[in-house]
């Protein structure tokens, strides 16, 4: 994968801002202003997160898997399959022209609504007390997850259309059909008592309004509405949450709704700065219910330590920054809106998940995007990342830059790093890709000195 070769660089560039070397700074500024920077930051951070996610899903799920199925890999295999489905979708999405993405908005929204509607009537609750799952051809999906993607695309398309038609001066035009669409999704999602998805949908809604430059009072009003709704939901959730927690885990003190988050902190604390090492988490032995999804960040923190947890926060920061960069540099309204809505979706979801684990947000039960187990979440999110890449390429200079790099993905990546000249002789074909990596690493090290 070309992206992975370049991403450590992405991470480094962020962290080394404190470097006093003026040469460094200059290069950094050049990179920062480079038209393809967003593209590589997105691809780098998301691929790292996906890779880390797979490893951590395996590590954190093996205990539960082996107890319930006898194989330590059963859940991991599902996740791997989901990633295998998601990767081509990501690549495909990243190559789609922007107009196709826009065209996807309405059908995707319709499909999402239909699936959610079927779920309400035909869904399975899998003993969790909430009807969120739908079985289609032997595959269980959670329609609320792709609904986030659908809403992000559709909402961006709707507002962009109105913007192009200069219809956004009126409140009515701003809110219709965006608000009803959002409302319908929220309602259907709430039927499955999926409060965290509701909050993500509302966040996307707000992000869209923000980008489109909704009049102050409207935005403030909507914001207040969302906050009120969220407040009510959290209040309801904390009551229900306690019940669900004790239901899932009879060993926990039922009166102690703080059991799960407390063990999240225990896990992080046990990890310390350097972590206990991959696979050695203790909290995954039943102390954290579903360590592979809602509390995977705690397991990362335990096994990889502060270094690992900061890295994850950093990667999401990079992804969020890149998403905002795409939005801010875009000229087309749709690109700006879609980039913003997808970024808001992923970033806010990550924020809430991590915030829950480190106890700065009340517990909501939301997966960590790209990392947590769950194909229904991973596949649409990977597609969303693909869309972000497509949007990044929509930047006028980026297209030129890409065209100038020639056909080889690796060469393009190296070119972005400014290594093309020195390494062009060794990097000639795909079969040489492996050989090129140590060289890069070495070069990078040399540079760091």
């Amino acid at each position, binding site marked *: 994968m070309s992206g992975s070769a370049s991403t450590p660089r992405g991470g480094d560039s962020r962290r080394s801002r404190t470097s006093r070397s003026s040469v460094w700074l200059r290069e950094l500024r050049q990179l920062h202003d480079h038209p393809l920077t967003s593209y590589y930051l997105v691809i780098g951070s998301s691929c790292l997160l996906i890779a880390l996610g797979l490893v951590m899903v395996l590590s954190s799920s093996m*205990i539960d898997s082996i*107890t319930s199925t006898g194989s330590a890999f059963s859940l991991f295999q599902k996740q791997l399959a989901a990633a295998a489905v998601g990767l081509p979708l990501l690549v495909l999405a990243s190559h789609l022209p922007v107009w196709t993405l826009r065209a996807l908005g309405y059908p995707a929204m319709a499909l999402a609504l239909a699936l959610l509607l079927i779920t309400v009537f035909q869904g399975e609750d899998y003993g969790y007390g909430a009807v969120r799952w739908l079985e289609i051809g032997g595959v269980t999906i959670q329609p609320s997850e792709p609904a986030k993607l659908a809403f992000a695309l559709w909402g961006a398309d709707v507002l962009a259309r109105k913007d192009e038609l200069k219809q956004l001066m009126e409140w009515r035009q701003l809110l219709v059909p965006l608000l009803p669409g959002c409302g319908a999704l929220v309602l259907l999602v709430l039927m499955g008592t999926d409060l965290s998805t509701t909050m993500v949908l509302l966040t996307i809604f707000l992000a869209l309004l923000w980008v489109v430059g909704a009049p102050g009072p409207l935005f403030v009003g909507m914001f207040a509405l969302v906050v009120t709704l969220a407040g009510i939901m959290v209040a309801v959730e904390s009551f229900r949450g306690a019940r669900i927690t004790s239901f899932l*885990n009879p*060993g*926990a003190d039922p009166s102690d709704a703080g059991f799960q988050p407390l*063990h999240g*902190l*225990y*896990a*992080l*604390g*046990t*990890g*310390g*700065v350097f972590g206990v090492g991959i696979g050695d988490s*203790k*909290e995954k*032995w*039943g*102390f954290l219910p579903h360590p592979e999804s809602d509390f995977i960040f705690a397991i990362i*923190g335990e096994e990889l*330590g*502060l270094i690992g*947890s*900061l890295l994850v*926060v*950093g990667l*999401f*920061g990079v992804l*969020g*920054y890149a998403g*905002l960069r795409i939005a801010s540099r875009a000229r087309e309204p749709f690109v700006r809106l879609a980039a913003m809505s997808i970024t808001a979706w992923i*970033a806010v979801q990550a*924020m809430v998940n*991590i*915030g829950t684990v*480190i106890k*700065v947000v009340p517990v909501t039960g939301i997966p960590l995007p790209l990392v947590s187990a769950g194909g229904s979440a991973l596949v649409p999110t990977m597609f969303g990342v693909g869309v972000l890449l497509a949007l990044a390429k929509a930047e006028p200079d980026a297209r030129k830059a890409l065209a100038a790099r020639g056909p080889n993905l690796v060469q393009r990546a190296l070119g972005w790093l400014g290594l093309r000249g020195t390494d062009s002789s060794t990097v000639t074909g795909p079969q040489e890709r492996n050989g090129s990596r140590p060289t890069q690493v070495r070069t990078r090290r040399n540079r760091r000195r």
Partner: protein
Amino acid sequence: MLILVVMVLFAGRLVQIQAIDAPTYASAASDVRLSTIDIPTTRGEITDANGNAFAVSVEVRTVFVDPEEVPDSKRAEVTDALTEHFDLDRDVVAGKVAAEPSRYQVIKEEVPPAEWKELEELGLEGVGAQVDYKRVYPEETGAADLVGFVGDDGHGLEGLEAVLDDTLAGEPGTRQVETGITGTRIPMTGGTAKEPVPGKEVRLTLDRDIQWHAQQALAESVEEMDAEGGSVIAMRPTGEVVAMADYPSYSPNEINESTASDRANGAVAEAFEPGSTNKVITAAGALEEGLTTPETVYTVPYSIQRYDETFSDSEYHETERLTLNGIMAKSSNVGTIQVGEQLGAEGLYEYLGKFGFGQPTGLDLPGENEGILTDPDDWWGTQLATVSFGQGLSVNAVQMASVYATIANDGVRVEPSVVAGTVGEDGELSATEEPTRERVLSEETSDELGTMLEAVTGDEGTAQQAQIPGYRVAGKTGTASRVNPETGDYEGGGYTAAFAGFAPADDPELIVQVVLHNPQKEHYGGEAAGPVFSDVMSFGLKTLEIPPSDSEPPDIRLTEDG
């Protein structure tokens, strides 16, 4: 900008959790995970002086099933195998095998390791076994009252098992393991925190064969005499208890079927008025103080008046002129009162105390009753008279046996003992602390008393039943009135029949003390307790391989005329 703020906030919080407060959280988390498992250890054996076991611990297995581990398709197979192997009720076993989500259902406890091995070879899924230890008391050692038993927790509840628990129990080891919330052990964590220390073997002074024989003889006699109970003590002159039998007794393997009185060790727990066996102390005191000699002649009428009471001998006789030897041999109350009066209340009290009356025996057995010996200042008018022939005070059997052991040991009293020592893993005996020794009588007085007591079993004595062919036997009968517990009076209280003695009289090796409480058929010490004495004594002498006496008893004068 917002993202940056959030990131800084999160990073700060993470640094707080994972760097600054990390030790607090980590230790709280490990407190939740850590659990301590006891590693059982073997309880020390209790053996006789030769290492024959009275109580042993054997390794057993607790066979259990983990229902979660049994595949549904194999349930029937597992159930059948368990049912068949242990001969259990199939429905009960089936219920346990299917008891998901339980992870632990005990199928059978106390399974011998070999039996478990057979089962293990079947390779049943979800069936396992834990090492455990079971206390086993070999049947019919006759030492149940002394040895006691352990409770379900493996700690002693009665007898020596309770008294010596600290020595026997050892210290179970502990292992600290980290477990998941379901109790599953997390691999590669923890380790043995403390190795178990096995309990020490305790070696007693008892001889298993003599113990067994004494118990049998006692039981037969109690049944035959229709007595309430009784006890037999066999002791060496140096105080080591060779046998300590008590009746009624019980089987330590069937504790639930026993009553508290079955379990009480009457040999120390029951105090009785010693009666004539006590006369030896009166004589000993008077002799030792030089107030009389064995040949001193006393005028002994049938009865004698002291204050408002008339004391008489057990059988009517004309007034006789008896030597001290004669008074002992014929067990004359009237004669003993005169000797007692020579010694005086203070003197008698002093000698009773020196012989160990009114004091703990030193065996430190549970429920010991040290008897009643009141201060002579508190004695009522006739109590000097009654105490001199063994009424108006009470003792337990071990205390009384110790009196005869003292005489047999040339006048040196050694505190009775029942524990020889502990045996370490190297098989070496580390002896218990030497018991206290105290000279009570001179060697000469002891010899004189021995001769005197030998006359008791002689042709003129009260206990010809106690004779043992080939051995010179010294002893003394005791027939005491018992207090009727309902009236507090001697009226209708029955008798305590006792016999205490030692052999061979010329070189004493073994003391036997027999007491029967309230025998109905015979109540004289000679008739009731004498046969048990000679039975146990002769068995004991043979078992201890003590050579027969090669001398004749000296001729002694019982009357003035000789």
